[in-house]
């Protein structure tokens, strides 16, 4: 190709490139603002997932709180009077992040929400021995703050008939434990009269009575715990070592507690 033509075309392309860059540049402000908004939306989505996994056990499926346990987070109170009540100087976001990160050693309203005792709420930040990273806690805070529109802004959301709070998260640990029992696959192998009819493992209808007597030095609570976490440690006569060894990893501490309470109640 003649060099004049190449120089001409090259110059043309560079000019066009420049024009595109100017076009891109003019849109940058909008694009950056949109990206920020999009990022905030993504934080809310991630926060919603984290809430389901970590928080709903005490604060309710939709943040409605559980009586005698933990306060509602979807209420107007959090967005209006709460900061003044506890004398918080910073923003609501800071308050949520601080509370989630460090938990609550003692409840600020023990008569209403004693929480889980001491600590009333565990620490969640991995800086204080919890499981969550800072970015995850920020996402949780974004999700919790997103209740403002329904709590004080007058926005209504339509509830489906199914979305009444899950009975698994009721205040009664026995009911919660039963739900854990049913969803963790226990029913496939164990019988509890009126609940399940599995025949692979021992019948658990009276386990609450028997458990304390099986092993010397073991309380009913300790025996049931050991049987779930380390099933091979003690085998009931006539049964083989068939139970899954994975519950120690797959079952959360809270679920395990509920499950033990439920099993102890089987008398």
């Amino acid at each position, binding site marked *: *190709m*003649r*060099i*004049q033509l*190449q*120089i001409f*075309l*090259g*110059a043309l*392309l*560079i000019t*066009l*490139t420049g024009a*595109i*860059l100017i*076009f*891109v*540049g003019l849109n*940058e*402000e909008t*694009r*950056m603002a*949109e*990206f*920020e*908004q*999009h*990022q*905030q*939306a*993504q934080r*809310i*989505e*991630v926060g*919603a*997932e984290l809430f*389901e996994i970590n928080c709903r056990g005490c604060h309710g499926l*939709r943040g409605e709180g559980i009586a005698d346990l933990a306060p509602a987070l979807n209420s107007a109170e959090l967005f209006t009077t709460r900061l003044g009540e506890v004398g918080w100087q910073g923003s609501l976001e800071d308050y949520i992040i601080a509370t989630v990160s460090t938990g609550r050693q003692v409840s600020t309203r023990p008569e209403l929400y004693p929480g889980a005792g001491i600590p009333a709420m565990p620490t969640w930040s991995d800086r204080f021995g919890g499981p969550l*990273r*800072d*970015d995850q806690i920020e996402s949780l805070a974004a*999700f919790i703050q*997103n*209740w403002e*529109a*329904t709590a004080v*802004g007058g*926005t209504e*959301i*339509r*509830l*489906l*008939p*199914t*979305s009444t709070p899950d009975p698994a998260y009721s205040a009664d640990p026995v009911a919660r434990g039963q739900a854990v029992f049913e*969803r963790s*696959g226990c*029913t*496939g192998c164990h019988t509890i009269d009126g609940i399940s009819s599995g025949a692979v493992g021992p019948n658990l209808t009276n386990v609450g009575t028997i458990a304390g007597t099986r092993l010397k030095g073991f309380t009913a609570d300790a025996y049931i715990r050991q049987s779930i976490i380390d099933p091979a440690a003690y085998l009931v006569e006539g049964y083989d070592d068939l139970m899954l060894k994975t519950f120690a990893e797959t079952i959360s501490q809270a679920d395990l507690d509920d499950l033990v309470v439920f099993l102890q109640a089987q008398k």
Partner: protein
Amino acid sequence: MFKTLNFTDIRNKLKQAFDARVRIVTAGLSLQELRALLRGDPPTEKPNPRYKVHVTSFLFHIRPKFYKKASTLFTHTWRLGFFTVFFFALELITGLVLMIYYTPSPADAYNSILNLMSNVPFGKLLRDLHRLGAEGMVIFTVLHMLRTFLTGSYKKERSFTWLTGVVLLLVVLVLSFSGYLLTWDQLAYWAVTIGTSMAEAAPLFGNQVNLLLRGAPDIGAGGLLRFYLLHIVLLPLVAILMISIHYYKVAREHGISMPAKFDEEDLSVDVKKEANRRIDFLPDLLAHEMFLTSVGIFVLVVMTAFFYSAPLEHIANPQQTPLDTQAPWYFWWLQGMLKMGDKTLMGIILPTIIFGLLFAVPYIDRNPHRQAYKRPAAVAVGLLATFTIVVLSYMGLPQYGIETPAATRIIQDLAPEEGLGELRSIPFEELQPGIYQVNGDMPDELCPDLLWGCHTLEAVFAEFSERVHQAEQAGKLPDVEAVLVIEEWQADLMKVTPRIIWTDSQSGVRKTYEKHIFLHRDHNRSE
């Protein structure tokens, strides 16, 4: 003094002085010559001052004085080598700017990318250019090598040039891969975890290599810093050195190879003379390079401004392995091989042999001929190897050869852990709360309340039903019940739950698999 004042004289002196300055800057070209050069006119002085530049100027001494005409034919080189270097230069420039905004620590790395995207004008464009350039560099390196192989241009005096080329291929692959980790998102983290775990399989010193790369048993702050330094210091230095050697051989020693027919066929003297005609670097080759550069920049800017977005997934989470973990595409072939056997054999020994063979190609292939039909075995091996790499790459895809439970697969395909998926592509307005049961009859209209209907939702639901039915008929999901629940969760936030319940054929237990997907109105999913 005034006696000698003569304006012509002064003008001439000034002209001479100016010309002398110009010659210093242009390494010997006069002003007049420079003009002729830019016009494409023949040289104005003898001996040709344009050749002198190649002796006096540093930047031009590494460039060729001329190439033979036939060796520059477009259909011979396809300009693949040129564009490889073009991409390398682009990576250097964009990389230098990106470094300003980047912090190589797990706590800050991902945030610095977000900041780049949301707070830096042209930040996204820069990142896209850098990413696209990296992919381009890998593609063009491989194509360049393939072309060199097929035209037999690695023979005799070019053997060592080929060898440096294979080193460059390795450098480019590792350079690209080491940059992969720096965004510190899920994609990056797990791809690199897999990559470095292969080093672990190396016999004898595998653990040490793995530890050296990662800086700890798991990738963390140490690993990120090491990959960062590899990416910005060591590998670019090695690449610059190797490119210099590779290019110097071509430009100053043996030139670009001629198309084989000019070397090996009996052609008329005129044709040979024309083929051997010199194309001077100044001005023809230089102008052509500038032209190619402007084409390259234009195409890249158009692609990044309108079509391409570099992927960015959720922040790296060492606790959560994504279901479909995947290496970058240029390592799919390796992933495919790993599925076929032992990690040490397939991940270390065979790749070492493959690269060993690549290095040795000019020394194994002693056939002096270059035309394809005179070296059928070599061409066949080359094509077969290319084909094998493509097939292996296909086998490396997560969809191939990995058995995922049916219910998990269906829901994962609709709403993957990372990336978009069909379910997340439903426009927010179409997400009408409801419980949509999968059974034989589809309702005519899923959302009668919406004037404009909800076609995307209907399509996704149809797809979901279809997949569930297929799995049921294939016997993978006996007694299946499936449902798609859409709930309003917060203001501007929807919760979508696809749920599949079936009877496990081995234990007879009812099993449930479900996934909770939250979708916010402002989450722009069109990108």
